[in-house]
């Protein structure tokens, strides 16, 4: 059903997977995501659709290996199947010709910002991409984003590649030097919060794609709720993109910690089983 065409590690803890999912490939738009279940006992995890090939009927996802599910996903081999892939979910990004667009991607968020950047460019925007990671090893999609933009800036926290520093430092330089009509930022919550605080002072419209914990992804459970402009919104159906200047990032950060202890328990059990399996 959802056959894996390719599954490769592209850096220490990031994998790229291409899956056969013709319906999703046919219908998806930039900014949308899927919910996958790796195997029968698996949980439902949301991943952004980074790319799709309509002819071949495949979609491409990038995943950061952080816990049980993403680790299990990284162990899946070409030719094997995923238990379930649901989508496309969420609103597509509001793409049109704004003028100058700056797309900011942090860490695994670069995968999510990629299709948006491409669509922004195709819509006629002058497109500047800023991507950043903790170090060179964690940087993904640089080549792809380079050829599909007017300008690309790369930062690493430790200076092992590109400019040493944060994406926000570079964004500030751009905002100081030219007119920017829209900023789209996807990455860890603290990074999106920092971008938002920065662009607020410049009064530049900013979109962020939120990564709340989800279950169904259809607006049924309310688990993905976030506060935007003081109102309750469901990330899966009202988002995942929201006006950055209205999002309560602190609340989101706290909610993301809900399962910290249990994720540890699950991961320990999972790795322990793997060890048994490998006869260690």
């Amino acid at each position, binding site marked *: 059903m959802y056959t894996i065409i390719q599954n490769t590690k592209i850096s220490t803890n990031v994998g790229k997977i291409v899956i056969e999912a013709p319906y999703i490939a046919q219908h998806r738009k930039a900014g949308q995501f899927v919910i996958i279940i790796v195997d029968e006992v698996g949980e439902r995890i949301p991943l952004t659709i980074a790319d799709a090939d309509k002819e071949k009927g495949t979609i491409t996802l990038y995943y950061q290996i952080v816990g049980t599910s993403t680790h299990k996903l990284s162990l899946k081999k070409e030719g094997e199947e995923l238990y379930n892939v*649901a989508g496309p979910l969420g609103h597509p990004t509001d793409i049109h010709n704004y003028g100058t667009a700056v797309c900011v991607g942090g860490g695994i968020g670069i995968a999510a910002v990629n299709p948006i950047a491409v669509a922004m460019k195709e819509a006629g925007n002058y497109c500047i991409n800023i991507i950043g990671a903790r170090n060179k090893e964690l940087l993904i999609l640089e080549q792809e984003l380079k050829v599909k933009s007017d300008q690309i800036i790369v930062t690493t926290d430790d200076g092992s590649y590109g400019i040493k520093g944060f994406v926000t430092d570079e964004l500030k330089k751009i905002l100081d030097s030219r007119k920017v009509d829209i900023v789209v930022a996807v990455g860890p919550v603290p990074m999106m919060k920092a971008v938002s605080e920065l662009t607020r002072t410049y009064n530049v419209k900013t979109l962020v794609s939120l990564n709340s914990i989800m*279950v169904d992804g259809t*607006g*049924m459970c*309310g688990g993905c709720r976030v506060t935007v402009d003081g109102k309750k919104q469901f990330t899966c159906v009202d988002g995942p993109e929201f006006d950055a200047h209205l999002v309560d990032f602190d609340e989101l950060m706290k909610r993301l910690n*809900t399962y910290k202890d249990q994720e540890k328990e*699950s991961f320990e059990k999972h790795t322990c089983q793997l060890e048994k399996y490998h006869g260690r």
Partner: protein
Amino acid sequence: MADKIPRQKMPQQDPAKRIHNFNEVPLGYDENTAVLEASRCLQCRRPTCVEGCPVNINIPGFIKALKEGNPLEAFAVIKQTNSLPAVCGRVCPQEDQCEKLCVLAKKGEPVAIGNLERYVADFEREKEHYAFQKVKAEKGKKVAIIGSGPAGLTAAGDLARMGYSVTVFEALHKAGGVLVYGIPEFRLPKDIVQYEVDALKAMGVTIELSRVIGTAETVNDLLSSGFDAVFVATGAGLPLFLDIPGENLQGVYSANEYLTRSNLMKAYRFPEYDTPIVKGDRVAVVGGGNVAMDSARTALRLGSKEVYIIYRRSKKEMPARIEEVERAEEEGIIFKLLTNPVRFIGDEKGRIKAVECIQMELGEPDASGRRSPIPVKGSEFIIDIDVAIIAIGNGPNPLIPKTTPGLDTTKRGNIVADPQTMKTSKRGVFAGGDIVTGAATVIQAMGAGKKAAKAIDEYLSTGVW
């Protein structure tokens, strides 16, 4: 004579044991008990019980067959009007439907119609396995059904039998709607729902899982891509919240999320299953319906030590089935009645640690005829908890109405449909179940599915809207 035999009790799992497992609580009648209970039926010439059943099962008919030692024939009688008897026998609020109108109810205890229905359906499923035959889609017309809850599944079965080619689109990865994600295993084993879904598939119904209509393809897209009619049966799946401070703390759940994690995703078997759930030692469930009882009893089974039901009216007004309230009491759930939460209190990490409540008293009857609760000034008090579950009801999911121009909805967002034909304001589109009525019952949703199937057949045969 018949009224001399007392109503046969349903054997149950011992409360002390059952709070530690997810196995079914009522164990079902054995053959002798079933026949004995069946013999209580007076075989009324004008059976009022039938009127109480939203799908008008021939109740005396099936009970007679059962009494005469013919459970399979009894099954066939039920199946004429009800496609999910094993489900209804378990979850119908019989005391408000068929059994309420049973003649014996006037003098004493009504015939245990639900228990008998369950017996008959279980007998068939466990012992006989009805041979479901593939039916030919000879009508050459296609019907799309959105949602695989009781309304959708019932319409699918009826339409397939009439010769239509039927495709059911379901957003989740399992079919069954609330029956699989909401109602817990200890009340409705998921194998039973799967059996019914498999039966539909064997008949030739196509079920497309993980297909959310409204995000990529809309109702209009379905109509223009070759479906001749659409039945919208998307249920009431939008969790309502209290909108009080602290509701977004870690550990505050909607009942939908809590139950979905536990039932559909099997979090009760974490970490064997990957989906986590916050277990909590002290759990407060806000609400007084079936959903609240299910949540509270699930929490107990997940290992919580103290579980509270916080309900703002008195027990008399509780919308939950009496049977379920009694079971919850037997299991040790603590009822905080005439109590309403005013805010949730968190620790510095944003995790819930307590709920502040206020005492209520009952005032004059409101529009619903129930006495309305009024807060007692200065009566606030705090209960320490580490999980809160909000079970105060569900609204209609807005996805389909929002993406279907020309589809009229009520102020609350429910789809407007003719109560007889389930026709909506949009040609070729029918709707039924909780999306039309608001949260109701399984059998009412099934009744709507049946009416819709009949009306769809009429529409597609005559072309008249």
